[in-house]
């Protein structure tokens, strides 16, 4: 019962964070929502009996790719 709620909750959270990513006006909010989406996707991979893939996802997507995006946003700021 609690496992079902956990899986469904993570699926809904992924969709909600993706909608925030696509529709946000501020670029920093977009990148933070992308990080949250990657983390919830990594948790879903863990629950689906794929721990290695979950570790790779959180390490690379929520780690390196998000930092790259933040660097690009900082370099292309209109000041």
């Amino acid at each position, binding site marked *: 019962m609690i*496992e*079902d709620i956990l*899986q*469904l909750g993570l*699926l809904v959270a*992924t*969709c909600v964070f*993706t*909608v925030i*990513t*696509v529709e946000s006006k501020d*670029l920093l909010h*977009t*990148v933070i929502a*992308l990080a949250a*989406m*990657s983390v919830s*996707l990594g948790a*879903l*991979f863990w*629950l*689906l*009996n*794929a721990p*290695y*893939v979950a570790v*790779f*996802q959180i390490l*690379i*997507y929520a780690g*390196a*790719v998000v930092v*790259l*995006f933040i*660097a*690009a*946003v900082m*370099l*292309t700021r209109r000041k």
Partner: protein
Amino acid sequence: MHCHVTIWKGGLNLIPLSYYIVTALILYILGMYCLAVKRNMIKLIIGIEILTSAANLNFIALSAYGNPGGVDPLGHTFVIMSIVVGACVVAVALTIAVHAYKHYKTLDVRELKRLRW
């Protein structure tokens, strides 16, 4: 057909497979919408990211449900390769975006009308 199965002890009870497929479909549609409609260069690159994440979720869900009581590790292999290649694609794309910003002084793709500097 007997695929190569890893027997997984202690997995949880999973919800029906169609929920994962529907979520991957929603992520696909959101990624394509972002890629087609948005004007900011960085938003386009994020759209590519969302598309590859949807495909990865599809792979992992189908390799967990294909055999009862086990996982198919072939799907996991493809997803690890896809994650790594996706990160490299994002790195190169962000380099192009920052370089284009330095020249055109804007992140709007509709301003990139001329093909020569």
